[in-house]
């Protein structure tokens, strides 16, 4: 729920991603890990893109990450975000893990720089966002 009473769009929950979505509701970032080749993947998929195995389990990631690049979105895709611009949309590299697109929350977007260290929002703050969301480690 946001200021203008619009709900954020949410991921389509299915049997492939439900464990991921449920974990983030508790502030936990889960990645798929392949039982055959051991590689971790984001976003959740029905098969491992490296070896095509469907033997996929889950591993927790602590959310420590580096901001690779970003844009400051003034024209978001949905009205729920209109009063929150700029949306900081980033490509982030999880430490020892895959890269992902993620939103970064920062009261002062001028402080955002490529290369910044990031961490997950604390569970209480994070759960209002539909997907794992990060903040700078300041």
């Amino acid at each position: 729920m946001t200021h203008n009473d619009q709900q954020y769009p949410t991921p389509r929950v299915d049997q492939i991603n439900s464990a991921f979505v449920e974990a983030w509701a508790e502030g936990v970032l889960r990645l798929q890990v392949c039982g055959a080749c051991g590689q971790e993947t984001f976003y959740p998929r029905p098969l491992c893109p490296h070896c095509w195995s469907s033997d996929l389990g889950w591993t927790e990631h602590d959310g420590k990450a580096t901001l690779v690049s970003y844009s400051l979105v003034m024209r978001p895709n949905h009205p729920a975000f209109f009063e929150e611009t700029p949306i900081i949309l980033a490509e982030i590299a999880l430490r020892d893990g895959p890269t992902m697109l993620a939103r970064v929350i920062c009261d002062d977007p001028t402080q955002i720089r490529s290369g910044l260290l990031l961490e997950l929002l604390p569970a209480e703050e994070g759960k209002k966002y539909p997907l794992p969301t990060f903040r700078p480690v300041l």
Partner: protein
Amino acid sequence: MTQSRDIGVIGYGCTDYVKKADRPLLTFLAQAGRDAIASAGLEKSDIDGLALCSFELPPDNAVTVAEQFGLSLSWAYLGTAGGAGPIASVLNAIRAIEAGQATSVLCIAGDAYDVSGLFRLLDNFGRALTSYGSPHGFGGANGLFGIIQRKHMETYGTTREQLGRISVDQRKNAQKNEAALLRGPMTLDDYMNARVIADPIRLYDCVLPCAGAEAVVVSSLDRVPRGKGVRVLSGYEHHNHPPGEISPLRGGWELFRDALYRDAGYGPEDFDLVQAYDDYPIMVAIQLEDLGFCEKGGVGRFLEKNSFTWDGTLPLNTGGGQLSVGQSGAGGGMIGLVEAVRQLRHEAGERQVSNAQRGLVSGYGMVGYGHGLSTSSIVLERS
């Protein structure tokens, strides 16, 4: 892939472009197709192959459109590579003709979008963006390509002033094109100071979604008089390169570049015009690098040293491109091809590139989780 030197593009057509579709998509596709058949000097009954590229077409497809069009076909093709699809459709049409599966193929690309339709498209483009882009407020393609542009700027020192030369010169080209939706004057200052959309992307980095369609006829070159056929010297496509990278600074053109020029017998310095896929200036810049017009990371200086108007040092998107004409969905992947054919037939009017003999056209598209998954290029020569 080496192409038969006897097969090429013998006709082209396009619709008018409109900001809001006032009629069904199928009528746009038919209008472009009818123009192309007429430009080739053929009759509808001569067409025995149909290739379609259109995001909004499903649940219809190439075969159901054949029924709507009253065409009897021995070959049908539906593009799946977004803005790279129309060039791929021409390459596939040539192979179909070489294999005897068809004699004359009509290739059409178009959509009937407006701005809100484009956001709906991007929200539902694929499972990945619907579930893992939209919930972040990602701003559609603008947000994704903002990430790529910033990475290029920070990695190689590319500046907005340099990239702006593409938008500004293409606008000058559009001023010679009555079909272009955006024909007002634009200076580099206008470009630099335009409204921020997804920093570093600003308004004049973005295309205007619209309705329209483009078409070509592929057949034996001996069906048209000398100078009216355009030979396809070589062409390639590539998909999902590099796997697993979200915001790559390369698109896949670099993988087939050497083969493309080897097959054609020509390289970057031999082209009289280039039609690059211009969803954003940063992707034009990356294409110029990947296709060998300059070294990787050197495009900023290349942009400063060249001019891109129809009478410039490197005539680029000589009709104004998608940035000034508008982006008719998948039609954006054929607008450059049609403009190249128009130029090589010496039918481009006030924006005609002097004595145009050879051109390079490239495509890009199918935005997945972060970037376009598909690339294509084709080398054309006046017959």
